């Protein structure tokens, strides 16, 4: 796919990408490198992978990382219950232990986990490794190995070669420094909160029924809310929720209905502290700037 087409196709599935991101996604395919997305929570990192899978019409395989994530949960596991049953079933047949062993450690009893599943797909899937910074360093090293060789060795079965090279998207919120090796392996893109203008485009792409002036007001207001000293800065998802709520309440003009704005702020602000910080006077002041 050509680079210019990529941005259009992404827009077609409702993801508003700037040219830099389109470039990163294009390079990812042409250089066959993973893409590391960094940015605050809620800026739409995960959405990138979803949109990418959609435009390629391919499967999205997601691996959510957490502390203590190990190979069994990420790569493969044996189906122990079935193995036990199979041993029982073959007990009376007088088969040798080796034969039984060979049987129960075969493909039939293998449970695929996301990483193995991703490299065994016929059509290159999108592999989303979400919040890699939450996994341990050991797992990171492990992942790095898979991402450079695209093969997985299973002691009982042998080496599994990749049928196709997946499009790998990694996301990180920066709770832990990632290793330099992993960073070097990946292309990098920093996802920032969208500009006011871009957020208007996101709103109109996702909520086609929204009035453009309202979308502009919402984007302007949210941009100013983000500048306030908040514990949890609202992300794009929050903006979309709020906009949907306002559309549902048939609000046409934010400035004309400050009470509704105040009452619906719970869509944007997710902690009690932030709700208190955005008192009616503050909301009024911010609305004044939007008008």
């Amino acid at each position: 796919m050509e680079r210019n087409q990529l941005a259009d196709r992404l827009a077609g599935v409702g993801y508003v990408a700037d040219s830099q991101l389109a470039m990163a996604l294009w390079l990812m395919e042409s250089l066959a490198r993973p893409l590391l997305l960094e940015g605050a929570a809620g800026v739409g990192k995960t959405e990138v992978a979803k949109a990418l899978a959609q435009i390629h019409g391919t499967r999205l395989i997601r691996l959510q990382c957490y502390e203590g994530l190990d190979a069994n949960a990420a790569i493969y596991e044996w189906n122990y219950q079935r193995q036990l049953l199979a041993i029982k079933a073959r007990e009376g047949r007088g088969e040798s232990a080796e034969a039984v062993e060979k049987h129960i450690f075969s493909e039939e009893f293998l449970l695929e986990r996301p990483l193995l599943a991703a490299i065994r797909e016929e059509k290159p899937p999108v592999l989303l490794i979400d919040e890699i910074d939450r996994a341990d360093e050991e797992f990171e090293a492990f992942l790095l190995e898979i991402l450079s060789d695209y093969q997985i060795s299973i002691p009982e079965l042998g080496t599994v070669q990749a049928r196709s090279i997946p499009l790998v998207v990694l996301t990180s919120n920066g709770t832990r420094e990632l290793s330099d090796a992993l960073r070097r392996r990946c292309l990098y893109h920093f996802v920032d909160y969208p500009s006011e203008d871009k957020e208007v485009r996101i709103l109109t792409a996702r909520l086609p029924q929204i009035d453009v002036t309202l979308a502009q007001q919402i984007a302007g207001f949210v941009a100013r809310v983000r500048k306030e000293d908040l514990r949890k800065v609202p992300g794009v998802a929050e903006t979309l929720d709020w906009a949907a709520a306002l559309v549902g309440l048939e609000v046409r003009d934010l400035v004309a209905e400050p009470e509704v704005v105040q009452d619906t702020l719970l869509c944007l602000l997710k902690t009690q502290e932030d709700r208190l910080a955005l008192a009616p006077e503050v909301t009024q002041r911010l609305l004044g700037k939007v008008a």
Partner: protein
Amino acid sequence: MAGLALTPEDVTPVAGGQLRQRMSAFLKILRDNGFLVGLEEAQDCLRFAARCDLSRPAVLRSGLRSIACTRLEDWRRFDELFEAYWLKRGMKGVLRVAGTPPKGRGARRLSEAGAPGGSLGTPDSTERQGEEGIGNPADREGRREGASASESLAEADFRHLITAEELSRVHELADRLARRMRHRLSRRERQRRRGRRLDLRRTIHRSIGRGGLPIDLAWRKRRDKPLRLVVVLDASGSMSQYSTFFLRFIHGVLDRFREAEAFVFHTRLIHVSPALKERNATKAVERLSLIAQGWSGGTKIGESLAAFNRQHAARVVHGRSVVMIVSDGYDTGAPDLLGREMAALRRRTKRIVWLNPMIGWQGYEPVAGGMQAALPYIDLFAPAHNLKSLEALAPYLERV
């Protein structure tokens, strides 16, 4: 010539060599500025540049940015460097930076990344090159003799404030602390031998010969890295009454802990673990006092921590590390630098303990600018003015 490599003519095979040259010079600038650009990345940059329409710098820019950047700092700096090199804008700033170790980024140079500290024991200067202190390894031995004869102020303080008996008690305490932690670790290992989780794969392997009855159970071990203690000691003038005391403590810690590292700073940071490998406590501490004395000027906590973060942190700090900073928080540098570096350190470690001898003083409030900036990133802010307060730390470290 501005935009020399950006005209379409240059993409012809004849000009391939020229593009290669221009590109490698650019990549060198990036490396000098701390970007992690290896051979593979360089090749990708070239492959990309050869394929794209160089008459449009915007395309080249965004492509190279994706390939060459590896983190947010790179991302933010890229435009400036790109414009300076390819478009000859704002040239001055970049030329100054190129070739010299980048500010705040030295440890990320490729050649050094992951190298197991070839510079062990050599003092690492932060930014300043002036040889105002001892700490040069070549000097250390020579000065030792000279200093032992001289009645330096640091030594006077040492004798004045801490008696020999007190000192040996500090050492004992460090010993005990270390032993308690080791005990905890070994207890954990025993539990592992008994097993926490069943290793199903191995259990099933073993049960085949028994008709599928899992009689021999296999247990899975949890692989735990031992906790590592990294001590960063402020040996500045305002801490002089305490630094000898803590040097002794650090020596005990290094002696006992399987994994421990120690650093001393004042206006710059020195990795002292190698100097402390001396088993004889008195000798080791003497050696350290020599390193610490003769330093002058203000305390640069922020700058020293920055040096720690970029030169040592990647090697000595991991997810199971506790960083113990011993300082009174009087920083003559900018507090926001200290805050930034604390935030960076915070991301790497499990716990940050800040021991402040001033807490023991009556009516002390942590109002020093530096202390204020550092507070949000500290897990335990504790007093450390006497043996008792140090002893109170042991239970905390055991729980980490």
